[in-house]
Structures are given as structure tokens and as C-alpha cells.
């Protein structure tokens, strides 16, 4: 009985220490999250309903008018949002399709030099994002490499104007920017694949294509979905690339948010748009997380 009592006391003491240790370990990240995410988002929410004002023209009246305008189709921004969704989906799908073979090749076809090639893939990150975007202006411009070549070989007699300053340009440049990002998670998921599974499929008479469809692809789907999200989420809110190469038709939802904050003098609408985007992204994450059961796909 006494021994049991001592064990219980020791157990309680242990639990107390464990709780303290957990609290101590979590305090830093939670504080960071609170200070640099929750509180700022709270401010943005306050701006979105007019509870906080910045400009002399702000009325200070709390209202849901900007939310109402956005959600009931009273503003042009919902159309812009769907346009950005379409563009982001296209970019994400194309990037995954392009990057998958790259990741596959690196993980399963290259021998000892695979990590050297991985380094080569991520080499563009050593240069400035802006430079990489601006380089496309040189390539796609009226007097750029592509137009000059097409005219030189006689395929066109004048520059193809939609190559630069269009939705196409924005999607092309975004795809170029994100391909290495996407190739990496695909590479990691394929690199971790147990080679004995592929050998077993071969031993059982499966063709290479059947092995890919029935074994490799399902086992790498977690990487594919992660890669898709890696591209989709940031590109919905993208504003730098459209600003530089998008022209009038490449204007995206992120540009509207940036304009409203930096020169629109309308932080209420800007905050509403930003929060709406945040909510949509959070919802998408929840859907992906709960219904696609990424962990189960991976195992």
C-alpha cells in the first residue's frame, strides 16, 4: 500500500515536471505565433470592419460593408479572385506535371550524382527573384530572343505581342519560378521509396508502366499533393510577377491587395481581401488535410 502511495506521488511529480517541460518548449513558438501572426491578423480583422482607422478620411464607424460588398458580388474583387484561382490552378498543375519527371529522374534514374543534380536544380535560387523575373522580359519582349528567332526563321513577320505582358506570361514565369520548389518534395518522396517494392512488382511480372501506375505514383502522391500546395497557396496571392510582366490583363488578386494597402488609402477593403484569402487558404488546407488523408496515402 505504502509502495503504491509512493509510486503515485512520484508519478504526480513526474507529470508536473512533464507539464512544465512541455509548456516551456511550446512557449517560444506559441509566443512567436501570437505576436507575429494572431495579433497582426486580429489587427487586420479590426481594419476590415472599420474598428481601426488609419487615414483622415476613415470614418471610424464599425460596419461589415466591405465584407458585404465582397461576398455579395458588389465589388470587382470577387471576379479577380476567381481569375487568380484559375491562374494558380493552371500554374500548379503545369508545374507538377513538369516537375514530377524531374524528381523521378533524379530519385530513380540517376546514380551517385543525384545530389549534384539536385544542387543544380536549386542553383537559380542563388540569384535574385526579381532578376529571374526580369530576365523573361529580355526573352519574351518584342525584340527578345524568341520573337527575334521566329522572325529570323520566317515563321512570323512581326513580334508576337502576347508573349509579354499577358496572363500567359505571368503563368509561364510563375511556373519557371516554382518548378525547382516542386521537384524537391517529389524527389524526396520518390527517394524514400523502398526499392524492394519496385523489384517485387517487376518479379511479379508488372511492366515498367504498370509498376509506375500501381506502385510508384501512389506512393509518391503525398509529395505530389504537398508540391501542388507549395505552388498553389503562394501563387494565389502573388503580386510581384504580375506587376513586372503581367500588363493590364495579368493583374491578380494579390495586386489588388497590395494596391489597396500601399496607395489605395483603403485599408478596410484591403484587409477584407487579405482575410478572405487567408480564410480560403486555411479552408483548402483543412480540406486537403482531412479528406485526402495525406499520411494514409503515404503509407
Amino acid at each position, binding site marked *: 500500500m505504502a509502495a503504491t502511495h509512493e509510486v503515485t506521488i512520484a508519478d504526480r511529480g513526474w507529470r508536473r515536471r512533464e507539464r512544465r517541460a512541455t*509548456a516551456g518548449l*511550446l512557449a517560444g513558438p506559441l509566443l512567436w505565433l*501570437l505576436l507575429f501572426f494572431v495579433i497582426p491578423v486580429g489587427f487586420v480583422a479590426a481594419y476590415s470592419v472599420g474598428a481601426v482607422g488609419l487615414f483622415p478620411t476613415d470614418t471610424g464607424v464599425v460596419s461589415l460593408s466591405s465584407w458585404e460588398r465582397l461576398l455579395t458580388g458588389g*465589388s470587382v474583387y470577387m*471576379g479577380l479572385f476567381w481569375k487568380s484561382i484559375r491562374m494558380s490552378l493552371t500554374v500548379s498543375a503545369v508545374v507538377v506535371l513538369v516537375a514530377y519527371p524531374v524528381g523521378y529522374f533524379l530519385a530513380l534514374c540517376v546514380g551517385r550524382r543525384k545530389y549534384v543534380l539536385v544542387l543544380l536544380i536549386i542553383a537559380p535560387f542563388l540569384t535574385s527573384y526579381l532578376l529571374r523575373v526580369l530576365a523573361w522580359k529580355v526573352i519574351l519582349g518584342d525584340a527578345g530572343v524568341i520573337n527575334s528567332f521566329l522572325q529570323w526563321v520566317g515563321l512570323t513577320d512581326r513580334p508576337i505581342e502576347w508573349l509579354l*505582358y499577358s496572363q500567359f506570361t505571368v503563368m509561364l514565369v510563375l511556373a519557371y519560378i516554382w518548378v525547382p520548389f516542386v521537384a524537391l518534395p517529389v524527389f524526396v518522396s520518390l527517394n524514400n521509396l523502398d526499392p524492394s517494392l519496385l523489384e517485387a512488382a517487376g518479379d511479379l511480372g508488372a511492366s515498367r508502366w504498370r509498376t509506375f501506375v500501381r506502385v510508384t505514383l501512389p506512393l509518391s502522391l503525398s509529395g505530389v499533393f504537398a508540391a501542388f500546395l507549395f505552388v498553389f497557396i503562394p501563387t494565389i496571392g502573388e503580386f510581384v510577377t504580375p506587376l513586372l510582366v*503581367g500588363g493590364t490583363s495579368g493583374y491578380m488578386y494579390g495586386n489588388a491587395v497590395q494596391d489597396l494597402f*500601399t496607395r489605395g*488609402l483603403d485599408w478596410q477593403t484591403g484587409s477584407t481581401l487579405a482575410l478572405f484569402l487567408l480564410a480560403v487558404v486555411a479552408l483548402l488546407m483543412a480540406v486537403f488535410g482531412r479528406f485526402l488523408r495525406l499520411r494514409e496515402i503515404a503509407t
Partner: protein
Amino acid sequence: MAQKRFTRPVGRRDFLRYAGATGMAVSMAGVLAACREADQPSTGSQGSAQPSFPPIEEEPGGLQVFDWSGYGNGDYYPKEEKKFLWGQYAKATGDTPEFSLFENDDSAYTKVVAGARYDVAHPCGYRYGDWVDLEVLQPWDTSLIPNFSSLNPKLMTAGQFDGQQYFVPLDWGFIAPLVNLDHVDGSDESFGVLFDERYKGKISWIDTLNMMVVAAYYLGIENPWEMTDEELTEVRDFLISKKGLVRFYWNQSYDFWLAFKKGEVWAGYAWPDTVGYADAAGMNYLYMKPKEGRISWVCGLGLFADSQNYRHAHEYVDSWASKEAAEFLLAYYYYGHTNTEADLSVVPDGVREALGLDDPTVLDEPNAHPETRIPRRSVYQQYWSEVQAA
């Protein structure tokens, strides 16, 4: 046991409990800090007697300048900007200014409203009233600016509020269409060239709500600076209908110049710098004098109320007001300068003619409409946002 400590998962309830505790702790810290602040006496400068300023030797230096790119920070002409725009300042004070840049007047104003503070800033005339209303500026003591007497007194009035010189207007220029005569018919000089179907895909607009004003002049609206909602709707719908003609909106004048030079665009909303570049490149260009009248702008330096570099700031604006600075702006940027003693021969003949620098009435109505404060600027911006998003 140690194994158990680090492998036991933290459940959702645990996580929420710890998150709640963290939130509570931070909130309490915030409340305590606010209480402590409230207990302390205010040290603000509002309501104080006429301030006296320490001698320049006692000022901290490191003048904080909030300015356009290429106006001293060396983006365009690293040596010359330093030599001509603030060389005199550096000589007089031994100080090197620190530059923060803005892209356009709206973003500059927004930054200051949001709390950014500097020693001097360089907005343009149509925003002066907004800046003064913010009560973040103090007037200049023009007796500390020896070159002030050389500045055009007529243009100085733009910087005066309540009889005090809150801004020292320095650089000026125009807004008008610049066209490539190899491709564009220049016989009808009008803002209409920016909305002309014949030049579809070869037109560039500026990426600011100034396009609303330009379109309003073209449409014959009586006062483009104070449009009613109906007029704004008309202008917005017009711009949306013409948006398909536009290749791109420009944010930096130099971006427009590069596209103009390469032939990617043939016509665009332009400042005088692009005219100078086109002239220097030997292009067959026309800087239009539109029948609706050019729009003129003037920009200048304002002094922040809480500046610790009061005398440094006056030295800086004096440097900018000098004849040397004026001739640098004329020769390198092809902008006008309010210093009337500047030698106009530094400007190429073609540019001098295109800008009308020899004409003393060039800035007067109806030749040019001065950029004016837009009282309902945020409403204009909403309509412009709709044009962009459409």
C-alpha cells in the same frame, strides 16, 4: 522516463491550454505596459512654445531623406547625384544623408500615415495639403536657405499654407503623351492618342489614378480634380472600355522608356525624362502639346516636425535649391527646376523646344493645368482600382 517525456504527444487540448496561457500572459504584459505609459507625463511637442533649435554641431546628422529613386541615392547617376544634389550639403555639414525611397506619391503618403518618419520628404504639389493636414510637418525657415531667393516666387506659393513655407518646390515637369512618329500620326495632338484603337497593344498608361484625370480632360469633364460620382463612373467605364488597347501600366518612368525605345509601345503617358532619353537616342518622337492642355507638376521638400536635424535639413534643401542642382536636373533628367538662374543651354535644343523651357507662359493656363489636390482621392482610387481589376 526521459524517453517518455519527449515521445508523449501533445494533444489538441494541451496545445489550446498552453496557447491560451501564452495569450493571457502577452495580453497582461500589454495592459501593464499601457498602464505604465498612461502614468507617465506626455513629452509631445504639441502646444509647446516657439521651439529653439540647437546649433548644427549638436544635431545627430545622418539626415533621413524620403525621396524618389535616383534623387540622390545614386540609382541613376551615382557620382553626379551626390555631387550636384547634395555635394554642397556634404561640404557644409560633413554628413552623408540616408535615403529611403518611394515609388509614387500615394505610397509615400500611406507610409507616413502609417507612422514612418524621416527628416525631409519630397512629395509633389497636389499632395502638399494632405501632408500638412497630417500635422507631421513643420514650416521651413527660409532665412536659413540662402538659395531660396533664387527660386521662382510664383511656384513657391504652391508650398505655402497659412502663410508659412511648408514645402520648398524644386523640380517640375509635365504629363503629356509621348509618341513615336514612325508609327503614330502626330497631326492631332491630344490625350486621345492614349485611347486610340489604331494603336492597340502599343500604348502604355501610368499605374496611378492620374489616368482618371487624363481621361477626364479628354472627355471634356469640367473639373477633373473634383469629379462627381456620375463623372467618375463615366471615366471609369471609358477607361475599362479602352483598357484592352494598353500593353502595360508603368510604375517607373524608366520602364516606359525601355519599352518605348524597343518599340514595344508607340505612345504613352510620359514625363519629361523620357523625352530627353528619346531625344538623346535620336528617335523620331513628339512630346505632344495636347489640345486639352498638358498637366504640370511640381515637387519639393518638406521638413518633418519631429526632425532632430533641423539645421541639417535646411542645408540639404539649400543644396537642392542651388544653381548646380538645377542644371543637373535639367541636363540629366530633363526636368524643370524652380531656380531661375539655371543655364538652360545645358538642355539639348530638341528637348528645350519639346518642353517649352524658353516660353515663360509654358506653365500657365490653358497651356498647362497644374496638378491639383483631389479632395476625394480615396474615392478616385476606388474607381481606379475597379479599372485595374476589371
